[in-house]
């Protein structure tokens, strides 16, 4: 090869060459280049995937699903019966959205979603999970003490409200259908969607009440 390897020093910068990426980044680059050469992955498909998850998919999708369910009782029934199909009606489908289950909050039941083993999450409607969802603290505490977790987050539930925790898996992914806030009868779907946060669809928050109105 003709060039001098120098593995003895730790510097990541050589004056003659370019900045060397981190060891981790080099491992990814090595694996990717080998898989591309073998025809096991297509670089264009990888770029398209990254673009999709960085800029096109996020909790706004889920908020539109929730708003539609609030506004259209027939849609809500379809959503609760077969979530994947009902969500696909709005154009949201793809990886990690194949077997969706929507769990409905009611005045007597609050639902909370976790993945205790890893990070299963409904990508087509929520995007990729936030850091805390992937943390051991949340994965363990959500099951052991869901009321405590909710209370710390400022979600205070009446004592007669029961909490159900849903453990997502690689086969089933859950989305919470929050309770529609009061005083929202006159709002259009798009305005309703603005009230729906990502966290309310995981079950760690409640939808925000419309601005300027009493809760």
């Amino acid at each position: 090869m003709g060039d001098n390897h120098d593995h003895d020093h730790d510097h990541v910068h050589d004056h003659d060459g370019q900045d060397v990426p981190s060891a981790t980044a080099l491992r990814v680059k090595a694996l990717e280049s080998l898989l591309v050469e073998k025809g096991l992955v297509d670089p264009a498909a990888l770029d398209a995937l990254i673009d999709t998850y960085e800029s096109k998919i996020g909790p706004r999708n889920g908020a539109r699903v929730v708003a539609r369910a609030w506004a259209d009782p027939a849609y809500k029934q379809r959503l609760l019966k077969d979530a994947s199909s009902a969500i696909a009606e709005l154009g949201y489908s793809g990886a990690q959205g194949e077997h969706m289950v929507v769990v409905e909050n009611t005045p007597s039941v609050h639902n909370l979603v976790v993945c205790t083993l890893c990070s299963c999450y409904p990508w087509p409607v929520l995007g990729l999970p936030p850091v805390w969802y992937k943390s051991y603290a949340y994965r363990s505490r959500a099951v052991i003490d869901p009321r405590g977790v909710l209370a710390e987050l400022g979600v205070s539930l009446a004592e007669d409200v029961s909490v159900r925790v849903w453990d997502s898996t690689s086969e089933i992914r859950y989305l919470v259908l929050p309770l529609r806030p009061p005083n929202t009868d006159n709002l259009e779907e798009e305005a309703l969607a603005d009230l729906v946060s990502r966290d309310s669809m995981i079950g760690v928050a409640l939808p925000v009440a419309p601005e300027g109105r009493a809760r």
Partner: protein
Amino acid sequence: MSLPDRAAGLPGLPKDGNGPVFAEPWQAQAFALAVELSRRGAFTWTEWADMLAAVLREATARGAPDDGSRYYEHWLVALERLCLAKGLTDLGTLDGRTDAWEAAYRRTPHGKPVELQAGDSAST
């Protein structure tokens, strides 16, 4: 999203503002590789989730920080292991290719595309 990130305030949980989806480009690449390999049938998503869960369990067991910030490092370990287990590549080839890329960066002048040379590492 303009809504407040309520969970960011939970004591004991890592904060997570509405920052970028991937903190560094390699995280995006590692993410996409796993999704694409699964989509093309190199492994099932259940096999992937099982492997990732095993790596996360090991990290917890050895007391590694598991606040979610090192998630994609665990993701990469799971990806490498599953690729090796499925025979998509082997450890010697992978290590050799990693060294080859490092050498390529070191020898390539600024502003030039970084490329491997013939003989840098075998691809089989």
